[in-house]
């Protein structure tokens, strides 16, 4: 006789719902375009695909003058050959990002560390004013026809809605920001329905956890990465507190 397992999986999950993990360091001041260009060239080996991020500003002179179009470079996005590893090189900092499949914290931290080392060598502004460790998760919940889904069966961060209608929600977006119990660290947690649904016959819920610190940021490199490492268990704890056992079963 087959026995159906009702065990709740524990992390690390075989099918972790992470769609993107980001370590983002923001500095005081702004790098010059020349500094950024030099920096991006140093990433060419590991990130061969390089794109300029630019803002377009259009000026229209209403008194009959000329119309001007200016492209203002805002930074670069560089990507690995398989497109899974990304660096955002911005005037006020650098973000290392990893898309699914997520290989683990060590790999992301190592890439962020290497990118920061290059930044320190190339850019005059080196004082970090914000450390952000952001994990965007997507929980794909299978549905059947005409089934109503109780989001609270999967998620513990949902909007509280007064009973002005008996009809179910067709979408939601909830965000909270609060300090954590670990000194100097705060978190922004956002949950929302992903629309349109990425997968057929699924409802997808995004759970975006941005753990950040804007005070008491260490200046020494060794201390900096010890500090960044502290965010690892913090974001894990927050993620676990935001989901239910039913959600965990989806990650088995």
């Amino acid at each position, binding site marked *: 006789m087959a026995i159906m397992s009702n065990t709740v999986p524990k992390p690390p999950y075989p*099918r*972790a*719902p*992470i*769609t*993107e993990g*980001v370590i983002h360091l923001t500095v005081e001041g702004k790098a010059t375009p020349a500094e950024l260009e030099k920096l991006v060239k140093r990433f060419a080996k590991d990130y061969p*695909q390089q*794109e*300029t*991020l630019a803002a377009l500003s259009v000026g229209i002179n209403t008194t009959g003058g000329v119309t001007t179009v200016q492209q203002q470079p805002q930074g670069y*996005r560089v*990507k690995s050959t*398989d*497109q*899974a590893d*990304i*660096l*955002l090189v911005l005037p006020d900092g650098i*973000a290392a*990002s990893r*898309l*699914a*499949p997520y290989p683990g914290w060590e790999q992301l931290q190592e890439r962020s560390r290497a990118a920061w080392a290059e930044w320190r060598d190339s850019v005059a502004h080196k004082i970090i004013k914000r450390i952000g460790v*952001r994990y*965007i998760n*997507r929980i*794909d919940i*299978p549905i*059947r026809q005409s089934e109503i889904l109780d989001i609270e069966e999967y998620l513990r961060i949902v909007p*509280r809605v007064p009973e002005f209608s008996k009809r179910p929600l067709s979408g939601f*977006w909830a*965000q909270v*920001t*609060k300090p954590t119990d670990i000194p100097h660290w705060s978190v*922004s947690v*956002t949950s929302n329905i992903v629309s349109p649904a*990425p*997968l*057929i*016959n699924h409802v997808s819920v995004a759970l975006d956890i*941005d753990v950040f610190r804007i005070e008491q940021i260490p200046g020494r490199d060794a201390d900096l990465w010890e500090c960044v490492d502290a965010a690892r268990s913090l974001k894990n704890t927050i993620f676990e507190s935001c989901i239910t056992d039913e959600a965990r079963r989806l*990650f088995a």
Partner: protein
Amino acid sequence: MIQLNIAPPSRRQPYDPGSFLGALPLPSSDASAKRWQAATEILVKPAPSAFPTPQSPNQTPLAQRLFDARAAFKMKTATLAAAHFNDAERSRLFKQIDSLLDNESWDSDDVVTTEASFTTLLRMVLFLGGRRPGLGVTSTGNFIATWTEGDDRLTIECKPQDRVRWVLVQNLDGQPESAAGETTAKRLPEVLSPYDPPKRWFPHAYQAAA
């Protein structure tokens, strides 16, 4: 009870709730509009992968268009398939993409396979589960997925917006029997239910539909 902390962070600083969506700004107020902009910037802060990719114009050299297409398909796989592909499946798919969109196999007049078709392919493959298909491309920019076993064969052309055109050949008591049609990816299990081979190749889709 939902508690809101309104205590100032220190004696020296006044209380500042920071960027907060709050009430809608009055259209007449510039300050409100700026506040709204700042607040929504934080709320909908794009992830590094979400920054728009510059599009290649049509006159771009073929090699560049193929490179951009390969990159876009891999990016789409990472964001759409997320946890549903393991490393081995992802590597296999990327090899198929690299092989199909190899510079040597294309002429400059060819229509490069579109991201809209790839999205349909990916959604369909994840929905059907089971055996992963072999892949091909059409001259009109669409992906083709094929499942083959002996004389049984299913070929599906993936069009944009989840539209699929299918051709099935099955061997019935030594006689080939064929059928074809067009539907959406979601309706495939139902439309193909009279035939046996699909039930062997992706049984999960039939169990889920039952």
